[in-house]
C-alpha cells in the first residue's frame, strides 16, 4: 500500500495522520483514565462508563447555555466551571450507583458487567427523553478557535491541543493520586488484600465508594472535554466503550503508563491506516491486531509483576 507514494510524501502523510490521531488519543486517554481506576484498580467492570462521560458532556452543554443566556460576559471562562460541575455531578451519581448496586456485586465481576450494562441502557434512554435523540454541540469561546500552523501540511487546532493538555493533566493527576498520595496507598492496599487492609484499620467500604465515585467523576470531566472536539448524542458513550476497555486491557490493567502507551499506539495505528484503507478496515485491522496481541500476551503490554 506504500508503493504509490514517494518517501517524502509518506513522511508528511505519517506526520499529518499522526497529528490527526492525537485527537483520538485524547479521547482514549480521557475515557481510559476513569476506567483505569475503576477497572484497573478495583477490578470492577463499569459498562456505563461511557454514559457517565456523556453525563459530563450534557452538564457542559447546559452550563454553556446558562452562561450564554445569563452571563455572556463570563462566557470565555465557562468551560472551567463546567468541568468542575461535570466532575461533581458524575461523581455524585457514581457514589450513588456504588451504594445502590455495585457494592453488592464485588464478588461477582461478570454480574457487575451485566448490571452496569442495564444501567447504561437506562441512562441512554433518559438522555434521549430529556435532550432528544439529536446530537448537541457547545459553542466554543473565542480563544479556543483557530489553529497553530506547524508546517505547510500540519496545523494544530487550539481546541484539540487544549483537550490533549486536559487529558494528559488528568493522567498526571490520577498518577499522583494513586501512587503518590496516602489515599492512593489505601486504595491499592484494599485492592491487593482486603482482609489485611481492614485489619490495619482502613475503612474499605468507604475507600470503595470514593474510588468508584472518583472514577465516575473523571469520566464526567472527560465528557466535558469531549464536547470541545465533538458533538454529544445519547449513545456517543457506547460507541467508545469497547475500544476503551481494549485500551485499558491492552496496556496492562494496573499500569497507568501502559494505558497511555496503548492509547497512543492504538490511536496512531488506526489513524495512519485510515489514510491508506477505508475507515472501517483500518478499525478492523487495529482491533484485530490488539485482540491477537492480547491472545499472545494476555497480561497486556506492561504487566505488574505480582504473585498470584
Amino acid at each position, binding site marked *: 500500500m506504500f508503493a504509490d507514494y514517494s518517501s517524502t510524501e509518506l513522511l508528511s502523510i505519517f506526520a499529518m495522520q499522526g497529528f490527526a490521531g492525537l485527537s483520538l488519543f485524547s479521547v482514549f486517554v480521557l475515557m481510559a483514565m476513569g476506567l483505569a481506576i475503576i477497572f484497573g484498580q478495583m477490578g470492577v*467492570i463499569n459498562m456505563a462508563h461511557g454514559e457517565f462521560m456523556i453525563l459530563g458532556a450534557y452538564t457542559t452543554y447546559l452550563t454553556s447555555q446558562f452562561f450564554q443566556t445569563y452571563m455572556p460576559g463570563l462566557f470565555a471562562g465557562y468551560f472551567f466551571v463546567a468541568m468542575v460541575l461535570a466532575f461533581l455531578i458524575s461523581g455524585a451519581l457514581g457514589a450513588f450507583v456504588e451504594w445502590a448496586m455495585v457494592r453488592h456485586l464485588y464478588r461477582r465481576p*461478570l454480574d457487575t458487567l*451485566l448490571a452496569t450494562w442495564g444501567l447504561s441502557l*437506562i441512562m441512554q434512554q433518559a438522555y434521549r427523553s430529556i435532550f432528544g435523540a439529536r446530537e448537541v454541540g457547545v459553542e466554543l469561546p473565542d480563544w479556543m478557535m483557530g489553529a497553530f500552523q506547524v508546517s505547510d501540511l500540519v496545523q494544530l487546532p487550539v481546541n484539540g491541543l487544549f483537550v490533549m493538555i486536559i487529558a494528559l493533566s488528568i493522567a498526571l493527576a490520577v498518577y499522583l493520586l494513586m501512587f503518590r498520595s496516602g489515599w492512593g496507598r489505601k486504595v491499592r492496599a484494599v485492592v491487593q488484600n482486603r482482609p489485611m487492609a481492614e485489619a490495619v484499620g482502613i475503612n474499605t467500604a468507604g475507600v470503595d465508594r470514593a474510588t468508584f465515585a472518583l472514577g465516575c467523576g473523571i469520566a464526567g470531566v472527560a465528557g466535558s472535554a469531549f464536547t470541545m472536539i465533538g458533538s454529544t448524542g445519547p449513545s456517543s458513550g457506547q460507541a467508545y466503550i469497547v475500544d476503551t*476497555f481494549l485500551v485499558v486491557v491492552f496496556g496492562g490493567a494496573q499500569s497507568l503508563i501502559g494505558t497511555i502507551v496503548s492509547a497512543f499506539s492504538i490511536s496512531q495505528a488506526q489513524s495512519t491506516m485510515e489514510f491508506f484503507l477505508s475507515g*472501517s478496515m483500518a478499525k478492523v485491522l487495529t*482491533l484485530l491486531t490488539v485482540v491477537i496481541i492480547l491472545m499472545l500476551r494476555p497480561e497486556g503490554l506492561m504487566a505488574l509483576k505480582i504473585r498470584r
Partner: protein
Amino acid sequence: MKTSSPLKWLLSREGLYYLALALLLAVILPLALDPFRLNMVGKYLTYAFVAIGLVMCWGKAGILSLGQGVFFGLGGYCMAMFLKLEASTPEATAHQSTPGIPDFMDWNQVTELPWFWQPFHSFSFTLMAVLLVPGLLAFIIGVAMFKRRVSGVYFAIITQAIASILTILIIGQQGYTGGVNGITDLQTLMGWSIRTDEAKTTLYFVAVAVLFLCLLVARWVDHSKFGRILLAMRDQENRVRFSGYDVAAFKIFIFCLAAMFAGIGGALFTLQVGFMSPSFVGIVPSIEMVVFCALGGRYSLLGGVYGALLVNAAKSGFSESFPELWPYAMGALFIGVVLAFPNGLAGLYRRYVMPLEDRLLRGKKTPAAAPKETTARRDDEALPDHLSVEKP
C-alpha cells in the same frame, strides 16, 4: 443420577418438565396463535438455541461470552448465502450488468462471485458450514484464550471486541456481505418457497424439533461425567487442574458447543425471517442474548428457553405500544435479574413452586411422583452457595 430407560426418565419430574415444554411449543402455541404470531414465536425460539448454549457455557462452566451474536450471525449468514445464491439465478437477475450474482454485489460493482461464496451453491456444504464455521472460530478463540488461562472479565471483553470487529467488517465490506442492510430478499429453499404461511409453520415445527434435539444433547453432556467436571471447574478451577484434568480442553469443547448451538439458531432464524443483517451480530444483540439466559436462570436449560421466549415477547409487546419504555424495561431487567434473583425464573420456580408441587404430589401419592434423589441433585447444584448466600 441413573436413568435406566428413556421412558422412565420421561415420567420422572424432570422428564415431565420437558414434556410440558414440548406440549406448549408443539401443541398449545400452534393452536392458539395465528401463523403470523407463530412465526414470531419461531423467531424467538431461534434465540433459545443461543440461550441453551449460554447456559452450558456460562452457567455450567462459568465462561461468559459476550460474543454469541458472532456465532449466531455466522450461522445465519451461511444459510443466507445459500438462499441468496439460489435466489440469484441468471434468469432472475438478467437485468443486472453481471447476471447470476447477488444483487448487492452488482450494485457495488463486484463482477464475479467471490471465492468464499462459491461453495454455498451446495446445500450439504451449507448445512455443514452452519455448524463448522461458528465451531471453528470458537475453537480458534478458545485455543488462543483458554490455553493461556484467560478467563472471566478479560474473556468477556475480548469476545465483545470480536463481536464489534465482525460487525464493522460486515458493514464495511458491502460488496461481499450486503453491508448494513444484510442479505435480503430470500425466496426459496431448494425450490420450496419460504415466504408462505404454510412454509413458516413448517419451519416453526422444524425449529421446535431441532431445539429439543439440542436440549437433549445439552442435557446429556450436562449429566455425563463431563458435566460434573465442568461444574467442578467453574467452582474450583485450580483443584480440577491439579487433579490432572486439562481444564483448557474442557472449556474449549463447551465454548465450541455453545457456538454451534448459536450457529444452528442463526440458520433457523434466517429461514424464518427471510433475511440476515449485521444488526443481529454486534455488541448490543450479543449482550441481550445473555439476558435471555440470565432471566430464565443461568443454570437451567429449560429456563434458558423460557427466558428467550419471554424477553423477546416482551420486547415485541413493548416496541409495539411503548417504544420509549423498552430500554428502561430492558435496563431494569439486567439490573433486577443480577441483584434480586441471580438464578432467574428457574431459581424462583425451584424456591416457590416446587415445594407446592412436592406437597401436592405427596398428598395425592400419584405414581408420577419421582423418587426424591432424581431431582435433588439438580436442586442443590443450581444454587451454588457463593451465589445464594450473600455476605457483604
